[in-house]
């Protein structure tokens, strides 16, 4: 099993990786350039991972299903219908019969096995093949508890995505969002957490208090959000492991619009007092706030650059809501948005190259991106209301919420989550059990 560069990772879900390509192929290898606008998705065959016992066969099918769904949703892959497969891959097969896969025009093929170990844990191994080059592109083994099998599938999908696009994946991630129910004038809002593909949805708060705008810490273990728990709006922290909630922005006036610094040591937030909102940085160890802006305006929705050196925010100091950048220590701010309309909710890409925003113009809302110097503005989607973009950790996909108009009886108006490629293509609903808003994408969980 150690042939072809298989590294048997023993850790919980750790994947240690080395790929031994004996003799690189002369021809151009299977690769997608995802920076191009319109992409023809790669036909990929993902048969069920092979197993011997019944539970292994089932797990093999489930794993293949989740990997297929992840890759399909990316818009970059076209998983082929398993009914078209000619070869029935079994545990004993070391090499695929490439001819069988070429015949159905699969460019890439995923094979693998599932075994239950003596300790009851699952051992999953997979290989990614370039069908036309007849060559293995990747291969890994993972060991984990049975309940954790979906994460293995997401990690495999990330590896396939990375091997073929050259970019990090984003499938082994979670979304925290606000789940909504009830009439529009008495909306019940709860914090909810789910896997990126909508699985494992659970509620973190019970809906008795209004909660808004959750955001992950860089370890994805904590969430900072706004809660009306004690009657007045304040910034809170929620620990996902312990379920503990604690107030952090408890100084005079309303505190809101929190976001973690990239090192996780600080939360930047807005504080409203006497009709003006200014930005503060809160040291999570000392709990001491430092003032960053001192304007007579509304300064809010701050977001750190990934290197922690700068903060982008929106302010109406110039007369209308626009985007500004300043040092993370405060000081002089420079306006970067100069198009027509208003700009809000700026969020710095994890790659640092772009800032996503909500734009309001001519009665419509837009999600767009621009470079940190304000150049290269590009609008990705437009609707009655689209708001609150959040980046996938690889900076290639955005999620946001979309809401239709409502009538006087409260029909319509249901907010839902959507994702879209940075190219503006592949807009899709991210399904949630109830209405949903304010999504925030976690970093990769590893």
């Amino acid at each position, binding site marked *: 099993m150690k042939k072809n560069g298989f590294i048997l990772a023993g850790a919980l879900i750790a994947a240690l990786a080395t790929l031994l390509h004996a003799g690189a192929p002369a021809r151009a290898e299977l690769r997608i350039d995802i920076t191009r606008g319109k992409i023809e998705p790669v036909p990929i065959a993902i048969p069920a991972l092979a197993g011997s016992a019944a539970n292994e066969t089932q797990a093999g099918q489930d794993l293949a299903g989740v990997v297929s769904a992840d890759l399909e949703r990316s818009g970059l892959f076209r998983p082929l219908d398993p009914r078209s497969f000619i070869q029935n891959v079994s545990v004993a097969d070391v090499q695929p019969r490439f001819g069988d896969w070429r015949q159905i025009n699969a460019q890439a093929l995923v094979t693998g096995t599932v075994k239950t170990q003596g300790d009851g844990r699952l051992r999953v191994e997979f290989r990614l093949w370039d069908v036309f080059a007849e060559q293995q592109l990747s291969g890994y083994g993972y060991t984990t508890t049975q309940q954790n099998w979906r994460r293995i599938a997401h990690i495999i999908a990330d590896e396939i995505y990375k091997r073929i696009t050259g970019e990090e994946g984003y499938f082994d991630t979670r979304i925290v969002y606000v789940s909504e129910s009830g*009439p*529009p*004038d*008495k*909306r019940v*809002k709860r914090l909810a957490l789910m896997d990126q593909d909508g699985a494992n949805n659970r509620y973190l708060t019970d809906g008795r208090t*209004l909660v*808004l*705008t959750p955001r992950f810490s860089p370890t994805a273990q904590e969430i900072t959000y*706004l809660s009306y728990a004690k*009657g*007045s*709006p304040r910034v809170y922290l929620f620990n996902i492991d312990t379920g503990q909630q604690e107030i952090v922005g408890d100084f005079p006036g*309303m505190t*809101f*619009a929190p976001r973690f610094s990239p090192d996780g040591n600080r939360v930047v937030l*807005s504080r*409203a007092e*006497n*009709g*003006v*909102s200014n930005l503060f940085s809160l040291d999570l160890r000392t709990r001491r706030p430092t003032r960053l802006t001192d304007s007579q305006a*509304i300064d*809010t*929705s701050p977001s750190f650059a990934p290197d922690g050196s700068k903060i982008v925010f*929106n302010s*109406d100091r110039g007369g*209308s*809501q626009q985007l500004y950048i300043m040092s993370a220590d405060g000081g002089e701010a420079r306006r970067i948005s100069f198009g027509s309309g208003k700009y*809000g*909710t700026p969020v710095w890409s994890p790659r640092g190259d772009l800032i996503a925003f*909500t734009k*309001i113009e001519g009665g419509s809302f837009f999600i767009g991106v621009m470079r940190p110097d304000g150049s290269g503005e590009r609008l990705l989607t437009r609707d*009655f*209301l689209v*708001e*609150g973009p959040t980046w996938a950790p690889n900076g290639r996909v955005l999620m946001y919420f979309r*809401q239709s*108009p*409502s*009538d*006087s*009886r*409260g029909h*319509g*108006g249901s907010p839902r989550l959507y994702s879209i490629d940075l190219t503006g293509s592949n807009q899709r609903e991210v399904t949630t059990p109830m209405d949903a808003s*304010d999504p925030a994408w976690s970093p990769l969980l590893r």
Partner: protein
Amino acid sequence: MHARIISLLGALLLLVACSSPPPEAPPAGPPGGPGGAGGIGSRNIVPGSQQDLEASAGDRIFFAFDRSDISPEAREILARQADWLRRYPNVTVTIEGHCDERGTREYNLALGERRAQAAKNVLVAAGIPAARISTISYGKERPAVVGSTEEAYAQNRRAVTVVN
């Protein structure tokens, strides 16, 4: 001098308000009863209560889109609220600031706070102690009128004075 004119005007408007209750008023008893000081009588309104404030002064003021300046109409309502608050010195209130749905969530939280504060400033300038008035913003979270129409938006851009 000016303040007195406004309060006189307020008293006049008060009578008008009592003779034609706003549609939001609870249908308690026949309309047009003797409102007097706070609508006691056939309408069974408790003096110093929220219903009394609504009937005597009006509990809310409205704003233009993305604005927090106090219109002349809003100033009259706040003057009546100030009169009413002077009449019941033990009453404390919370002013709730609200927005329509056509802004981003966090900006609207700030705008709602700014509107509540603008209303509070008028009451304080009219002599009501700041300690009797707290403010809270609900941004676009609690519309008064449901629907994506200009009429609904105009009703939702508001500051509502709520008796604690």
